[in-house]
């Protein structure tokens, strides 16, 4: 479970998150919608300690983590897998080595045979086969995104954080990735936070949707609740998909 309590994040004199509070329950898919620059990615990066909040509390599975050191975050990052906006694959490593990277670091006791089996399983979860020996530059952008997803689930996280997973993809690949997010979240029973500006996808696969505007939560509820929202920004998002 992930919980934010009045989280504020400032960069110099700019306040990006203005006292954000919300809760993501065990096993649910929570979409965080908002226009560009509203602090969605900053919010996700605060969960895994890539950024530290200026004030407020972040609770993960009953632990307050906002003041954790880099070493203490190691444990949290094992539980929270993050899929970045860019595929963020390591150019010099093969697809196999990319997917195995997290296993080797988070679970050093794993044998080579177990790693091989785990990598194959994770790649098949994202419907990729026979590309283990290719370098990231040799596969398409959509495939890179899926490898990135496989790399994240390879360490067996209980929470999945997606930072705009479909940005820059064509509609067909976008649908495939969205379906993958849904299937993986259900199959692995993970709590999933998806940062996006794709209302269509959010209405399709989210259990709950939270809308962020200028660093504040302006709406939160089920897809049905959102459809009846009176918030102008939510209406604008809904207008786009009509």
């Amino acid at each position, binding site marked *: 479970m992930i919980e934010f309590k009045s989280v504020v994040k400032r960069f110099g004199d700019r306040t990006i998150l203005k006292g954000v509070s919300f809760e993501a329950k065990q096993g649910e898919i929570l979409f965080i919608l908002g226009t560009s620059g509203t602090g969605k990615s900053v919010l996700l990066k605060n969960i895994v300690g*890539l950024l530290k909040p200026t004030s407020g509390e972040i609770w993960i599975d009953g632990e307050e983590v906002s003041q954790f050191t880099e070493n203490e975050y190691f444990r949290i990052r094992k539980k929270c897998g993050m899929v970045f906006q860019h595929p963020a694959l390591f150019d010099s490593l093969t697809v196999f080595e990319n997917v195995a990277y997290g296993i080797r670091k988070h679970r050093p006791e794993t044998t080579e045979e177990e790693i091989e089996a785990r990598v194959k399983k994770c790649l098949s979860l994202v419907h990729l086969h026979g590309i283990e020996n290719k370098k990231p530059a040799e596969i398409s952008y959509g495939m890179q995104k899926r490898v990135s997803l496989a790399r994240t689930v390879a360490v067996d996280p209980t929470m999945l954080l997606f930072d705009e997973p479909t940005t820059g993809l064509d509609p067909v690949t976008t649908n495939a990735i969205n379906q993958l997010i849904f299937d993986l979240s259900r199959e692995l029973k993970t709590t999933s936070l998806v940062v996006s500006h794709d209302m269509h996808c959010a209405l399709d696969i989210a259990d709950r949707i939270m809308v962020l505007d200028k660093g504040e939560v302006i709406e939160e509820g089920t897809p049905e609740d959102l459809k009846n929202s009176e918030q102008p920004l939510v209406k604008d998002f809904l207008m786009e998909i009509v």
Partner: protein
Amino acid sequence: MLVSLNNIIADIGGGVIFFKQIVWQGLTKPCRLQEITDQTWKVTIQSMSTTAMAGFFVGGISTIQFTMQVKQFGALGYLGGLATSGTIREVGPLLIAFMLSGKVGAYTSAELGTMKVTEQIDAIRCLGANPMQELILPRFLGIISSSFFLLVAGLLMSVLGGLLMGIFFAGINVHEYLRHIPTIVAGGSVLSGLFKCFVFAVVLATICTYKGYSASGGAKGVGKAVVNTAVATMVGIVVADWLTSVIGDSVTMVYLGM
């Protein structure tokens, strides 16, 4: 004016803190030896041909310049020793540092900057690794150790270049050129050259890794980091040269009791 001065001071401060972090990382959780040797090999191979070529011509230039001076005093026999001493003490380390700055410094900065803006460094942290240990330390140590190999190669080529110029330009033979090298090039010259080489490599490695690691703002940010690396390393190396010369001279004076 005040703003840019403030930025320069903040930049120097950031670099010093980053250097401290690298040293601390090296002392507490060092990287694997294999990673350092890989980086050393990569940097050495990348820069070997250009360094050797530059060394050859610098040796030749030194000999031409010294020929004009020593001829006036009828001391052509000292040509090889003087030209080699000058190259080992000053020109060699400086040349290697500039070569590495242009090639390896810019490359490292661009590589790390790209990894930073495409979130690869964030991914490394999320996947349970420490980027200082995995990325920065091997590159930092690789640049420093390769600079010694390149220094040796550059110096050997400069002696060869100087020797050829001595024969064809000054008209002296091989034996005459090499005769006074052991007497003029003393241990102090070699130590001075090695010390300078080490200091320049530390300055270069710190600046290029720091600039790359702190890049932000997409492709434009990477470009800016590379340009800043080129400028900062050149200035840093020249300042370090001045400092090491002052320190070296002071130590020599104390040693000689002057």
